[in-house]
């Protein structure tokens, strides 16, 4: 008797738990749809035919009019409802007013005249992979050899050098703030922190003049790359936080043994910092890859555009080529997604580091 009640109770608890688990999954999926569906829509659009773009209501899966070849020419296929309700597929040769000239694709010699309102377009799933090469090769202006591949190359160059610059410039600075004892260290570090609050707009115009008029770097990658070689407050802060977690005794022991600061930095601290260095590399790449304002201000001619700027080529004065634009966006996004799956740990680590106190 007693045993039975216990059994019953555990059963009800179990079904209660199952309901709770289901409820949790359900909630996550509801919100998750908001995050995921736009993503699928981007990929779906990138594979659509031009004719499938403006369709109302939109198809979630890329569809296109079914075509059939008759005498070496392609004609659209329509579904025709006979009087008894059965449907046949016909190839429409052309429309004349309210009527259509159509043939049976299996017997193309006999032309039928059919009323237009009883014809219905036949759609088949069709993925237009050629959107990708077309988007890549589309030149902004004919005759000028600038296309999306150039933008891709430019983005890669800028992102690559930004990563190198940030890594080699921020590490020694952060080391000095974390491990070298020198007068004025704390005060100087407050300056570093304070400079993070400065909006880019304040320095924008003098920097524009400096790069364009003084240094003659107008319309080149240099204004975007060179400053990364001179350290930035944000990454100095991150690195310093990490360096401080390395036991000071290790550095002191090396100092007693006569190691110079440079040796301690390069032989002890740097090898221990691979995780944070890769995190910073990932985020710097992402930042340079995404950056819109910098290239917008410093790059003028199309051959120097990055992908972020080049995306706008698909948006004309009159219309937007959505399928090509989405194809280009996919190309723009895929390297980031791939990087994310390989370097997930670095991503998450980086976000946590920025958000959490020491």
């Amino acid at each position: 008797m007693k045993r039975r009640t216990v059994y019953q109770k555990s059963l009800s608890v179990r079904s209660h738990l199952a309901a709770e688990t289901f409820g949790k999954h359900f909630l996550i999926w509801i919100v998750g749809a908001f995050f995921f569906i736009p993503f699928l829509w981007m990929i779906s659009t990138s594979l659509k035919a031009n004719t499938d773009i403006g369709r109302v209501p939109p198809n979630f899966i890329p569809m296109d009019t079914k075509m059939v070849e008759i005498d070496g020419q392609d004609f659209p296929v329509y579904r025709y409802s006979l009087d008894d309700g059965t449907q046949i597929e016909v190839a429409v040769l052309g429309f004349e007013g309210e009527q259509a000239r159509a043939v049976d694709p299996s017997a193309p010699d006999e032309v039928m005249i059919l009323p237009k309102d009883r014809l219905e377009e036949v759609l088949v799933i069709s993925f237009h992979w050629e959107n990708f090469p077309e988007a890549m090769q589309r030149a902004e202006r004919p005759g000028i050899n600038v296309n999306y591949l150039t933008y891709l190359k430019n983005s890669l160059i800028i992102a690559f050098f930004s990563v190198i610059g940030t890594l080699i410039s921020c590490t020694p600075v952060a080391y000095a703030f974390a491990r070298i004892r020198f007068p004025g260290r704390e005060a100087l570090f407050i300056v570093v922190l304070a400079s993070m609050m400065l909006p880019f707009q304040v320095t924008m115009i003098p920097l524009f003049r400096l790069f364009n008029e003084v240094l003659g770097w107008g319309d080149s990658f240099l204004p975007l790359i060179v400053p990364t070689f001179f350290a930035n407050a944000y990454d100095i802060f991150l690195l310093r936080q990490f360096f401080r977690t390395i036991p000071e005794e290790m550095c002191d022991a090396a100092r007693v043994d006569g190691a110079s600061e440079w040796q301690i930095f390069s032989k002890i601290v740097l090898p221990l910092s691979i995780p944070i260095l890769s995190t910073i590399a990932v985020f710097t790449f992402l930042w340079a890859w995404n950056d819109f304002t910098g290239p917008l201000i410093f790059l003028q001619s199309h051959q120097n555009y990055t992908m972020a700027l080049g995306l706008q080529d698909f948006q004309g004065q009159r219309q937007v080529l959505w399928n090509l634009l989405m194809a280009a966006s996919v190309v723009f996004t895929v390297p980031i997604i791939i990087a994310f799956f390989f370097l997930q740990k670095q991503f998450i680590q980086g976000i946590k580091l920025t958000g959490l106190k020491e």
Partner: protein
Amino acid sequence: MRQNTRSRRWPRLRPLGRKERRSLWTALLFLSPWLVGFLVFTLYPMVASLIYSLTNFNGLVSTRVAWYSNYAELFQDPKFWKSLGNTAYMVLFSVVITLFFSFICALLLNFKVRGQSIYRVLFYLPSIIPTVASTMLWIWILKPDNGVLSALLGLFGLESPNWFLDPNWSKPALILLGLWGTGGTIVIYLAGLQEVPQSLLEAAELDGAGWWQRLRHITIPMVSPITLFNLITGVIGTFQYFSQAYVFAKFASVGKASITLGAPLQSTLFYSVYLYQRFFEFRWGYASAMAWILFLIILVCTLLLLRVSRDSTYYAG
């Protein structure tokens, strides 16, 4: 006597010892990338733009000192107030809605369910999609004539607002696309939720506290430093809101004679957008004055937030 009081207030700089001097030189060597960068790319431009803001500098014609005239003009410029108002709208609504939504998402992702790690990736992924690409994508989704959302609303018999023509709906559209990329904030909240001691929650549960009470009295106070961090970075970021608005306005003026920043009807003319417009028109003195006002606003807001939050933020240890 007098010297005594002085030395108490200002500790006299004593000459550095030999060892200290050496360590200072070593440190300066290590610091040199930042020192040079700070002087050339931060301090000099700061001083220069402050000086520009006091002139009628336009990059071309000879420059005259104009003292406060840029600032005086600013305060009488209806577009300045318009852009400030639009930005305040975003700071108030976008930041708060984003924080709230991110916290809810973090709570969901903290559920101990199967597939948790996949769900986390799913929620985070949109945030790493380049801003321009995600803005374009959302424009395509929101298009009132043949967008997905309008078809979806149609299923429920609703009509899609015209996000690109109606000035009342353009900012909500931008908030919506901002929510899509809030993955970073979610992850920060999630990390905070994992720091909440399980023992505390269990003890409260034994004492009969329900889900809501545990959330209200334990979880929310425990993550309050993270809320403050997200709030401050959100406010600073939103005051500089630019790329999305630029791309959005460019689309909203497709088919028109020229690209109108702030379209439709100046409803997306945010502070940084207007500043960029002035910069683009070579009104560099004016733009510099705007930049300095922006800096002051950000500074004041940050300090205010820090001040106000002092009593309502919980710090462990």
